[in-house]
C-alpha cells in the first residue's frame, strides 16, 4: 500500500488510479462547481488586492492619522468627509475595507449554505475571523498613534487575508473542483513541498521586516539583507519546480509567475530604496516617485506571497512527498504506484 503525506480521501483515490506514462492521476473528491460562489471568491480576492494598495497609499502618504478617530470617521458612522489631503487616502482605505468585510460576510454565509467540503467552510470562517481581527488592528493603530508593532501586524495580516482569499478563489474554481489531478511522487530531498513552505516562511519574515521598516520600528538593512535569502530560496524553489515537474501545468504556471514576480520585486525594492532612503530621506513631504515605488513594492510583494501560497497548494496536490521509510523501493516508481 502506498503511504504518503496525503489525506485519507486522496489515499482512497490512489488505490486504483488510471495509469499515465510518467505519473499517476487522482480522482477528485465529489463536489459541485458553483459559478456564482467562485466568482464572489475571485471578486473578494481582487477587492482585497485593491485594499492592500489603498493601505499602502495611506502609509506612503503619511496619512495614517488624518482621520483621528475609530471606528467612526470624524465622529460619524456613515458621512463621507471632504476627501482632501490625507483624508482622501485614509477614508478611502476605510471604505474599501468596509466593502471587503461585507464581501467576506456574504462569502462566508454562502459557503456555509452551498459548500460540501467542511474544510472550506472552516476556511471561510477563518477568513471572516481574520478580516474582523484586521479591522480591529487597523482601529488600534489609529487609537494608539501608529505603534510600529500594531501597524506592522496590520500590514502582515492584510497579506495573510489576501492569501486566504486567493486560496478560496482557487478552491472554488472549476479546475480545482472538476479536474482529475495528475500526481507524481516527490522523492528528492528537500522535497518541493518543503521548499515551497520554506519560501512562504522567508517571504513572511520579509513581509514583517519590511512592514517594521515602513512603520519606523526597524532599520532598513534587515529587510534588504533578508531579500538576498528570499531571492535564493524562491529561485531554488522555482528552478526545482520547473526542472522536475515542467509537465504539470498547475505547478509550472505559479512557479514561472513566482520567478517573474521575484525579479520585478527586486527591481521595485531597489527603486523604493533609492526614492525613499537615498534620495528622499530629507523630503519635506511624500514625493510621487517614492509613493509610486513603495506602493508598487507592497502590491507586488502581496502578489508574490499569494503566488507562493498557490504554488505550495498545487505542489501539495500534484507532487505529494513519498516517505522513504514507509515507501518500498519498488513502489517509489510512480507507474508502480
Amino acid at each position, binding site marked *: 500500500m502506498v503511504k504518503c503525506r496525503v489525506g485519507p480521501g486522496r489515499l482512497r483515490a490512489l488505490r486504483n488510479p488510471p495509469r499515465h506514462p510518467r505519473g499517476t492521476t487522482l480522482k477528485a473528491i465529489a463536489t459541485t462547481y458553483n459559478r456564482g460562489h467562485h466568482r464572489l471568491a475571485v471578486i473578494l480576492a481582487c477587492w482585497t488586492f485593491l485594499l492592500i494598495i489603498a493601505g499602502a497609499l495611506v502609509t506612503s*502618504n*503619511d*496619512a*495614517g*492619522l*488624518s*482621520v*483621528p*478617530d*475609530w*471606528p467612526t470617521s*470624524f465622529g460619524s458612522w456613515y458621512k463621507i*468627509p*471632504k476627501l*482632501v*489631503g*490625507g*483624508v*482622501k487616502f485614509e477614508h478611502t482605505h476605510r471604505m474599501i475595507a468596509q466593502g471587503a468585510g461585507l464581501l467576506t460576510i456574504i462569502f462566508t454565509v454562502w459557503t456555509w449554505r452551498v459548500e460540501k467540503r467542511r474544510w472550506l467552510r*472552516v476556511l471561510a*470562517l477563518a477568513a471572516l*475571523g481574520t478580516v*474582523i*481581527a484586521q479591522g*480591529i488592528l487597523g*482601529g*488600534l493603530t489609529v*487609537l494608539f*498613534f501608529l505603534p510600529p508593532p500594531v501597524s506592522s501586524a496590520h500590514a502582515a495580516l492584510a497579506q495573510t487575508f489576501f492569501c486566504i482569499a486567493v486560496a478560496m478563489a482557487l478552491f472554488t474554481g472549476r479546475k480545482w473542483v472538476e479536474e482529475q489531478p495528475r500526481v507524481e511522487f516527490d522523492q528528492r530531498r528537500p522535497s518541493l513541498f518543503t521548499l515551497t513552505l520554506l519560501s512562504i516562511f522567508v517571504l513572511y519574515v520579509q513581509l514583517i521586516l519590511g512592514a517594521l521598516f515602513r512603520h519606523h520600528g526597524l532599520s532598513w538593512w534587515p529587510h534588504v539583507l533578508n531579500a538576498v535569502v528570499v531571492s535564493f530560496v524562491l529561485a531554488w524553489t522555482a528552478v526545482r519546480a520547473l526542472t522536475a515537474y515542467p509537465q504539470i501545468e498547475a505547478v509550472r504556471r505559479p512557479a514561472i509567475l513566482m520567478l517573474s514576480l521575484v525579479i520585478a520585486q527586486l527591481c521595485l525594492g531597489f527603486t523604493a530604496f533609492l526614492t525613499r532612503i537615498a534620495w528622499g530621506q*530629507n*523630503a*519635506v*513631504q*511624500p514625493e510621487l516617485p517614492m509613493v509610486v515605488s513603495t506602493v508598487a513594492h507592497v502590491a507586488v510583494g502581496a502578489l508574490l506571497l499569494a503566488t507562493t501560497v498557490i504554488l505550495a497548494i498545487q505542489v501539495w496536490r500534484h507532487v505529494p512527498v513519498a516517505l522513504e521509510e514507509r515507501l518500498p523501493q519498488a513502489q517509489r516508481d510512480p507507474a508502480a504506484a
Partner: protein
Amino acid sequence: MNKKTGWIEITVGMLALCALLALAACSKKEEAPAASPMADQPAMAPAATPIDPATVATINGTVKFDGPAPKASKIDMSQDPGCKGMNEAENVVVNGGDLANVFVYVKDGLGNRTFDVPKDPVVLDQSGCKYHPHILGVMAGQTVQIKNDDPTTHNIHPTPKDNREWNESQPPSSPAIEKSFAREEIMLPVKCNQHPWMKMYINVVKTPFYAVTGKDGKYEIKGLPPGDYTIAFVQEKLGEQDQKVTVAAKDTKTVDQSFKPAAE
C-alpha cells in the same frame, strides 16, 4: 462535544474576544484625559524664586549660518484646494548669512530656581496650510492656543518623547484648541496628518529664559539673574550647540553663534 460544535464554539469565542478588544479600544479613547490646559500640569507648582529686578542681566546676539545658504525646498500643496500659502519649506531659513528659527535657551545655571508659569497663552496659528510660528517656545504648564485660519480642516498631532501624545482635528472656523505640556522637551515635533508638509516644533522649558531667532538671526533673553550659564542654540536640522557665559548684575552680554551646514 462533537467536532462541529467545537469549531462553532471556538469561532464564537474568537469573535467575542475581538469584540472585547474593540470595546477596550473604544473605552480607552473615552478614558483619555480631557483636552484641557490643566490636563498635563503638575499637581502643585512650587512658589517662584524671587529675582531682584535691579540686578537682572540681558543676553543677546546673532546666529549665523557658516556656508552657502541652502535652497528652500518647494512644497506642493495641490492635494488640498483649501491651501494657498507660500510653498517653501522652513527647515533651514537663511537670510544673508543670518539663521532664523533657532531656539535659544538657558540650559544650565539656574539651579533649583522655580518660575511662575505665565497666565497668557502662546498662540500657534495655522494659515496658508503652514504653522506660524515654525518654532515655538513655551513654559511647562503654559497654555498653547491653537487656531485654524484656513478654509480647510487641519489635524494637530504632536509626537513627543516625554509628554503625552495626542491627535485632534480642527475644522475651519472652529474654536481654538487649548493644550499644555507638562514636561520639559526640546524640539517636540508637531505635524498635520492631513497635510504632510506641515511641521513645526514646540520647545517646552521650565524657565522663561528662552528666545527664537528672527529672520535677521537675532535673539534676546532678558531678566536673567547674575550667574554662570550654559546657553543652548538648537536648530531642527543642524542640531544643538552650547556656549558658557557669565553675566554680572545689570550686564548686557552679546553671545553670537554660528552653525555649519549639515553633513550630507
